């Protein structure tokens, strides 16, 4: 097979870039070695934050493929915001690094013969899990944060299991290549590379993996320039993404859904579902609206009655799984006061149901600590005014550090369950 090499495959002179080599690949690999586990772990933590114990994480059944379950805390209040901001933000920032890393090793893809031993066949299969996994996760993630569901299958399920396939490939790859990464990084110091101009840029010495070109062209870009280009790309992505999370920097995210300016009224901050999309009529959410409160017994309250109960104000962020977030000043009745009113002062959990009945988030269960946190509210007002229809009028839940979509809007019923 080795003698019948198809054109363009194998160690040909077609690869001309003088920059390819183990050192460059290892620098990019090191960045990913540090960054990608953070993206993976924050993703898996997000699954725990959705409350798999309460049977409301998606996908529901993951076998052993999860971090140990624990009760997701309500403090610090920015915990979920940080987790998801890192997951999505760092995931986006690493895209240029992943692309550069793939560029740096692409000649090995066209290696000929395709396999010299069984071990090599297995290694190449594990690379499929690695490269397929990372590209699949990046593509589905990027499409999801922009509401483009062209792929048709369930994003949550595919993205979750895809992460495990990637992790399988990642662990093998790190295990096999870590010694080589260390040797390559020791071969040249970063400081030396940063001092070398384009005119003095030379190819790395030939390597056993065949990353270094056999017949390199003269450098049109220095190695430091290439690193600057990748680093600059990553920095640029960071700048155009941070506005999705920091309210003051919102205009910077000018290409992302959550970078849009919504005016400056008290209710002008992003929503993830409009009242129209939820199919809620003005009649349902109008004066005839009643809150159905149940626990030891059942009672109904109208909005005026809720406003006569002790009101509490809390400045809390609301953070979406898609990585965007916003901080607002919410006021309303503490959930623990409502639990006491329902006759369950020490609830084990609570079920919140929305007027909107379609979709997986028309109801959400809350853990005991989430009901009892002093800042957990059935919010009636935001920033000193009534909630707008899109923000959940007549009443919505807001709980510190809870995934945004579980802060149910247009609440119809609250059921407190005793321990």
């Amino acid at each position: 097979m080795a003698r019948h090499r198809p054109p363009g495959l194998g160690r040909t002179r077609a690869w001309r870039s003088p920059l390819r080599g183990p050192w460059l690949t290892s620098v990019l690999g090191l960045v990913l070695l540090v960054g990608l586990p953070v993206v993976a772990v924050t993703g898996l933590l997000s699954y725990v934050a959705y409350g798999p114990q309460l049977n409301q994480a998606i996908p529901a059944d993951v076998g052993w493929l999860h971090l140990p379950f624990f009760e997701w805390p309500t403090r610090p209040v920015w915990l979920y915001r940080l987790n998801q901001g890192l997951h999505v933000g760092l995931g986006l920032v690493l895209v240029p690094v992943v692309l550069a890393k793939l560029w740096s090793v692409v000649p090995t893809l066209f290696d000929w013969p395709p396999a010299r031993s069984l071990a090599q066949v297995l290694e190449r299969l594990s690379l499929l899990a690695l490269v397929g996994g990372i590209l699949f996760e990046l593509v589905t993630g990027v499409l999801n944060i922009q509401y483009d569901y062209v792929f048709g299958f369930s994003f949550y399920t595919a993205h979750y299991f895809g992460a495990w396939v990637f992790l399988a490939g990642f662990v093998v790859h790190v295990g096999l290549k870590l010694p080589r990464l260390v040797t390559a990084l020791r071969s040249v110091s970063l400081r030396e590379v940063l001092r070398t101009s384009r005119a003095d840029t030379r190819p790395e010495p030939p390597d056993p993996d065949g990353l270094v070109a056999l017949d390199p062209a003269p450098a049109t870009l220095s190695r430091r320039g290439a690193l600057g280009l990748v680093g600059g790309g990553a920095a640029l992505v960071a700048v155009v993404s941070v506005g999705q999370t920091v309210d003051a920097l919102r205009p910077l995210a000018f290409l992302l859904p959550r970078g849009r300016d919504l005016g400056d009224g008290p209710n002008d901050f992003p929503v993830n579902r409009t009242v129209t999309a939820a199919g809620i009529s003005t009649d349902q959410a109008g004066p005839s609206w009643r809150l159905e409160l149940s626990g030891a017994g059942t009672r109904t309250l109208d909005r005026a009655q809720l406003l006569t109960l002790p009101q509490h104000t809390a400045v809390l962020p609301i953070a979406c799984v898609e990585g965007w977030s916003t901080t607002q000043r919410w006021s309303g009745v503490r959930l623990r006061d409502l639990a006491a009113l329902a006759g369950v002062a020490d609830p084990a959990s609570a079920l919140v149901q929305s007027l909107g009945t379609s979709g997986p988030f028309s109801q959400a269960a809350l853990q005991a600590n989430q009901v009892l946190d002093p800042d957990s509210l059935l919010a009636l007002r935001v920033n000193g005014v009534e909630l707008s229809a899109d923000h959940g009028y007549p009443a919505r839940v807001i709980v510190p550090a809870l995934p945004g979509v579980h802060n149910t809007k247009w609440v119809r019923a609250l059921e407190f369950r005793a321990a």
Partner: protein
Amino acid sequence: MLASFALVGYVITVLTPEALWNRETWWQSVLVWFLGAVVLHDLLLFPLYALADRSLVTGLRAVRGRWPGRPLRVPVVNYVRVPVLVSGLAFLLFFPGIVEQGAQTYLAATGQTQQPFLRRWLLATAVVFGLSALAYAGRVGLARTDEEPGR
């Protein structure tokens, strides 16, 4: 390594093999997207940008060859590469808004349309190309004063 293959096998059993394949619309299958991502990157995206870059380098060399008497003091190639890469990266990451894909879901989630994104991306592209041209002009100016002192 065996543990890793066992893990992939376990992922498939938990996910169920049926979930990998969509009988009605084949291209909306998890498997197709998983392998498709690799094929699309390795056999389409990579060759395209490699070809584009090589054409740029040889193209610029050919253009320069027409004026043999005037050697270029500052190579222009990176002043084209950088803005193209910036604009391309922005498109690669944010194309759903730019080409208005998923408009229905976008409207349901945000209450807005994706109408401004194409203009914003074009504007940003124009700005980076403009900045790059200015930087090039600056470098050429510097190179000239360095080489021709006293003039």
